[in-house]
């Protein structure tokens, strides 16, 4: 039982080995490595897929197809990007294709901001008007939120947040998901989604502002 030619690197607690090790172990048909990747990345992939497809079931299909795509491609993978980014590129292609088939379309290249992404992200009536001595300043400050330690509030807040995220336009949702839930950098998201840095920032900004407003409405009763 001492056959490992690749050091047995721990894959518990979401700690994955370096890319070169991952690739080598997959090519050696190391099932434990494949299982560890599936467990580590599938939750994030499911979230990302949900920005494109109509339901959880379809998202599960897309993620399965993605892993089959990883199997198909690993022999020829050239490590020009990280394994995770490569896998996500496969995922986004599948998700887009599937979304188009389900008529919930985000055609390739249409993740750009639209006219809906222009204009203020905080309702103008929250600020003082031009005839006020302090134009452009808060009419009244945003109301305080309850302490995050309040666990009853925290549970329902998560549900509200998840609901608000699901209600975002797909282009905002995918950027917020990759950045704030998956921890991708701005550069990685631009690369994956073929966005300019400025467009990525617009979508992230609008998504975050809308989610903050939704939490504000839930936590304080303030209507944006």
């Amino acid at each position, binding site marked *: 039982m001492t056959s490992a030619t690749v050091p047995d690197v721990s894959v518990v607690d979401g700690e994955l080995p370096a890319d070169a090790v991952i690739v080598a172990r997959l090519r050696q048909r190391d099932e434990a490595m494949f299982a560890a990747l599936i467990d580590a990345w599938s939750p994030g992939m499911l979230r990302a897929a949900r920005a494109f497809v109509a339901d959880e079931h379809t998202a599960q299909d897309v993620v399965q197809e993605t892993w089959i795509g990883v199997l198909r491609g690993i022999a020829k993978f050239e490590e020009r990007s990280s394994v995770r980014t490569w896998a996500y590129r496969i995922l986004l292609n599948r998700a887009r294709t599937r979304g188009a088939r389900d008529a919930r379309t985000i055609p390739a290249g249409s993740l750009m901001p639209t006219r809906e992404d222009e204009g203020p992200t905080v309702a103008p009536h929250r600020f003082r008007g031009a005839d006020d001595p302090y134009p452009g300043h808060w009419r009244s400050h945003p109301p305080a*939120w309850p302490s995050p330690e309040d666990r009853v509030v925290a549970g329902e807040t998560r549900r509200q947040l998840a609901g608000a995220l699901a209600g975002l336009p797909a282009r905002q949702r995918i950027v917020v998901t990759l950045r704030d839930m998956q921890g991708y950098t701005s550069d990685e998201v631009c690369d994956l989604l073929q966005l300019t840095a400025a467009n990525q920032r617009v979508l992230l*900004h609008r998504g975050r502002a809308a989610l903050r407003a939704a939490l504000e409405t839930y936590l304080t009763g303030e209507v944006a």
Partner: protein
Amino acid sequence: MDCDEFVELVTAYLEGSLDPDTERRFVEHLAGCDGCDRYLEQIRRTIAALGHLPAVGLAPQARDRLLTAFRDWDGG
């Protein structure tokens, strides 16, 4: 800087992509405005909450199917 300009710059500020002059005006405004300080804090809390949304994994049957496919893969 006015508050309605501030709220539109929070993401660029958090990304570190404001030009030095705008960043200076942003930080000066932040230091003197409780409303915007709270707004920025709430944006940060929103981001933190996103990072704590519960994760759903792949269905166990799907996971099993994939591992079987891996085992049976002929490399083609």
